[in-house]
């Protein structure tokens, strides 16, 4: 059975697309046939981060409106086997997303793919609701600051009341907290919320903590998912998150300010 995973946040610019690209790549690297769908109709971003923008011919909306088949619109990733991208259109507006259309596309994808990653647009309106509606799992991308946490809380409320699983009384959507752009120095200085603060408020299981890192920007400028950068801490942290998503235990890393945490890290990190 294909697993549909939405990557969502409420707040914009927190790292959803970066995360979708990294997690999708990580799952595919491990031999799972994976497709990443860009639900951010009108803003098209995923193809840039995946470095396939020049190969976009048809997009998600073309498929929804019957102007192209899925096979025509899916872009096969050049670097990673088993990985496909369904880009969003830059021109059409979000009204093109209909529940029936999305369902039909997801059903069709579910026949060949093991993982369907839905990169949600920001906000809590229609586009975001459409991206999360059919999800089996949700990765809640949160930055360690108050407004992001609050928006994540809001989107969790929507998942719990307006997803298909909620509406039909099925098993609840499985929730994962992914804290991104985490800067231990600023946390120590009290300028950012700590992992514990965020966990305390959102009260959902922690999938991973991705450190704030230059390498993310570098990677997205090059059109390479950061998870492929094995030297980057952010890449390693995403790799750990993928392991956890697959049910494997991994100690959390990069949580502490480097100097003081040397021994802790030597001993395998905390928690």
């Amino acid at each position, binding site marked *: 059975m294909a697993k549909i995973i939405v990557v969502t946040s*409420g707040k914009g610019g927190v790292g959803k697309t970066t995360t979708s690209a990294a997690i999708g790549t990580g799952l595919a690297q491990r031999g799972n046939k994976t497709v990443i769908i860009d639900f951010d109709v009108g803003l098209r971003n995923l193809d840039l981060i995946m470095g396939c923008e020049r190969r976009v011919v048809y997009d998600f909306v073309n498929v929804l409106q019957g102007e192209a088949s899925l096979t025509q619109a899916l872009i096969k990733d050049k670097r990673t086997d088993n990985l496909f991208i369904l880009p969003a259109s830059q021109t059409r507006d979000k009204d093109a997303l209909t529940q029936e259309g999305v369902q039909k596309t997801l059903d069709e994808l579910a026949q060949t793919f093991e993982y369907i990653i839905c990169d949600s647009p*920001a906000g809590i*309106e229609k586009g975001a609701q459409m991206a999360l509606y059919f999800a089996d799992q949700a990765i809640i991308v949160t930055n360690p600051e108050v407004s992001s946490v609050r928006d994540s*809380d809001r989107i969790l*409320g929507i998942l*719990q009341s*307006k997803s298909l699983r909620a509406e039909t009384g099925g098993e609840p959507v499985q929730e994962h907290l992914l804290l991104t752009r985490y800067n231990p120095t600023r946390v120590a200085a009290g300028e950012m919320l700590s992992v514990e603060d965020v966990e*305390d*408020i959102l009260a959902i299981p922690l999938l991973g903590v991705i450190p704030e890192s230059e390498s993310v920007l570098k990677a997205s400028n090059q059109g390479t998912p950061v998870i492929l950068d094995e030297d980057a801490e952010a890449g390693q942290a995403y790799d750990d998150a993928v392991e956890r998503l697959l049910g494997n235990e991994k100690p959390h890393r990069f949580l502490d300010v480097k100097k003081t945490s040397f021994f802790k890290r030597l001993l395998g990190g905390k928690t």
Partner: protein
Amino acid sequence: MVGFIFLEIKATVTDPLFQIKGTSLTVVVLELYNYSPSDFLSQLTDKVQAAAHFFEQSPVLINLEKLVSDIQAADLLNLVDQCRQLRLQPVAIRGSHDQFGAMVEQTGLALLPETRSKDRPLETNPVTDKTPEATDGADKSAIDTTNTGSNGTPDNEPAPAAVEAGAEEITTSQDQTTQIISRQIRSGQQVYSAADLIIIGNVNEGAEVLAQGNIHIYGTLRGRALAGVQGNTKARIFCQQLSAELIAIAGNFLPSEAIHQQNYPDPVQVYRNGENLEISAY
């Protein structure tokens, strides 16, 4: 709370000069039944004096849906003016566009469409206050706080899951028995109990829990909790940690600023002592 759609406008080429966002806003609702200039002013003055801090500069929504007699444009202008005299800030008027549209335009305030929802009366001075039903049907105006979302719930039926984009999830129970909820109440969610309310979990910032009776929170209260909303001054709020945006018992309020000024050990209870809200250990 206003279920504004969360919009973001992004510039793609130049740096964005601004961002448009939605927000939640709780307003005081002035529900008008009849209008006569002098009685209105005196009744409103009483209300405002009873809870001066609560009303100070409060945004006010004037609701004309319950109006039983006609109102003229001049009356409406006068009414808005009187609100301002008392340092309230009328921001919008709710009522039918056909009936009031032209009139509201003259006031310069926003016109909000009609709702089917029944706003909860929230008496600001319940001990001495006459309820609207108890008066003789002359000039009456009840002041409620309400959520201005368009997805309010009729009092006598269970809340359907909100369907509109950005709308809140609202859980209401009209059972006369304690309602127990074993989950976290998240931002944008609201729970109402016609009796006591027990929450096993946190009440997060942006969430609101209301009960006609007591509220027990086995967790941290970061959002809003209003107990005794129908005027029961004996109602109490209990929580393991208090870091609320607002607490209220039978219409008397403490906003977060006032709560944070006080020192108290956790866990706490909140109760009425005359017109004051006391926070103490239990």
